[in-house]
């Protein structure tokens, strides 16, 4: 592996390849295959119990489970591999080569993004079997959204893993981020009109500002990858899709930059 690594054309490409290899050898491919089948079976069992709307039930159940499964498995694998590299000292070996820390971060992120793309494409292919042809555009939108969501959560996982270099701490922080990002819109709405509180009181105003601030810097992941898109009833406008896509990429860039800056400052 080291030979192949040294023969690679650029450091980033080599690290990207290393990440992909690590994913493959870490049995990610097999895991993905098993997950696809397991969720398919679960959705089929659930669908069998339905009296009506069986297709809708199958689509939304599968969409929800695929989304959760990929986000958690890829996020956890990102944290585990980065922390393991630090604990085993492999990162020292890597940095002993002519590789900058920025290249390390970029290589990791690109490798992860390709893994996420493969996973999202696999889900797209499986879901295409069930989604009616006239809803395939919605399925494509859903899959792109899933990929973007995976990129955001992966970048955040990288940031916490590099910053904390501790498995439990990174997982907890990453999970807290994900839950917060998923409920952010609801929390902002509630903070904007507090019930049973004087809206001009310090707590109410502080709460509004805190959630406003979070709303500025955290993408609302609750509006990404919605299962109902696959039913063709509620499709977001193209403007909303554009904003969310751009936001996801910008946010991933922010996390990558922050992770790299922290990594530069970190004692190895």
């Amino acid at each position, binding site marked *: 592996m080291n030979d192949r690594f040294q023969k690679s054309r650029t450091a980033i490409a080599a690290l990207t390849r290393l990440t992909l290899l690590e994913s493959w050898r870490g049995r990610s491919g097999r895991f993905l295959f098993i997950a696809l089948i397991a969720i398919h079976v679960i959705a089929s069992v659930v669908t069998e119990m339905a009296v009506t709307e069986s297709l809708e039930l199958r689509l939304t159940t599968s969409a929800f489970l695929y989304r959760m499964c990929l986000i958690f498995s890829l996020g956890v694998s990102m944290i585990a591999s980065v922390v393991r590299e630090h604990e085993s000292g492999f990162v020292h070996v890597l940095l002993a080569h002519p590789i900058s*820390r*920025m290249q390390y971060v970029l290589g990791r992120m690109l490798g992860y993004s390709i893994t996420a793309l493969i996973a999202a494409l696999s889900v797209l292919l499986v879901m295409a079997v069930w989604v009616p042809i006239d809803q395939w555009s919605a399925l494509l939108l859903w899959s792109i959204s899933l990929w973007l969501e995976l990129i955001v959560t992966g970048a955040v996982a990288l940031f916490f893993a590099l910053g904390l270099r501790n498995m439990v701490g990174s997982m907890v922080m990453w999970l807290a981020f994900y839950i917060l990002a998923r409920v952010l*819109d*609801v929390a*902002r*709405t*509630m903070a*904007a*009109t507090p*019930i049973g509180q004087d809206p001009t009181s310090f707590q109410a105003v502080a709460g509004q500002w805190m959630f406003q601030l979070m*709303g*500025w*810097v955290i*993408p*609302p992941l609750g509006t990404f990858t919605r299962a109902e898109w696959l039913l063709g009833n509620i499709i977001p406008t193209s403007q*909303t899709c554009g*904003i*969310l896509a*751009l*936001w996801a990429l*910008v*946010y991933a*860039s*922010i996390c990558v*930059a*922050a992770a*790299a*800056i*922290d990594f*530069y*400052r*970190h*004692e*190895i």
Partner: protein
Amino acid sequence: MKSNFLQARLRERVRLFFAKRKAQAPAPKALWVLLVVGLLTSVILSTVRGKPQASADALGWPPSNQGARLIALDEPVAFAKMLNLVTQAHDVQPGLSLAYGQLNYDQLTKWLDLSLELDPTGQYPLMAGARLYTQNSADLARQRKMTDWVAARFLDDPERRWQWLAHVAYVARVQFKDQPLAMQYAETLRNKTENIPSVPAWARQLDIFFKIESKDSETAKFLIGGLLHSGKITDPNELRFLAHTLKELEEGKR
């Protein structure tokens, strides 16, 4: 002494955190630029997207009790507490375009029912039903549906829920100006809480005061007299107050 020790420990931790992050190699300036530009873009995108709005058209029907327990991994009380917030976040937006009149109160009461089923001691759904969903931004039929719902749920646990029936009795009297309905709620309150000492006297005697206020002094006298002779009132001040009220009624002063 202990707080000084904790402060010192905390200071040491913070010092160590930053000491470990002494620049090993300076981060390229481009990274800082990327970070700042990214954050600014994020703020712009958030502003362009606008503030999230509550939607009135997607409340739908709640899951069954068993379904909710399944979703909550059999943690019903915690789930019920979250459910209250989710229901509230959906529609408690008096300042926005979402009037309660846009809500489906049949669905809403089912959500409140689910919360009560999961957490029977919870007061939140009853508070929301009595105070929030009876506001004037809902039409009278919806408000009435909600007061009836509160009255029906009161019967399940009068000891814990009496205050919400008392509240809707006042809503019926002051807001709906529906004297018979207010009396009906107040009488239910008295009948079901007569033998519950934890319920304050004013709540148990609400129908009497409604009668007095509506100049139905004969019935009021009958009720107060019955109460005084029942032996259920033991507090001397309360006895004195009721006797004084009865005297005033008999003298035609009220």
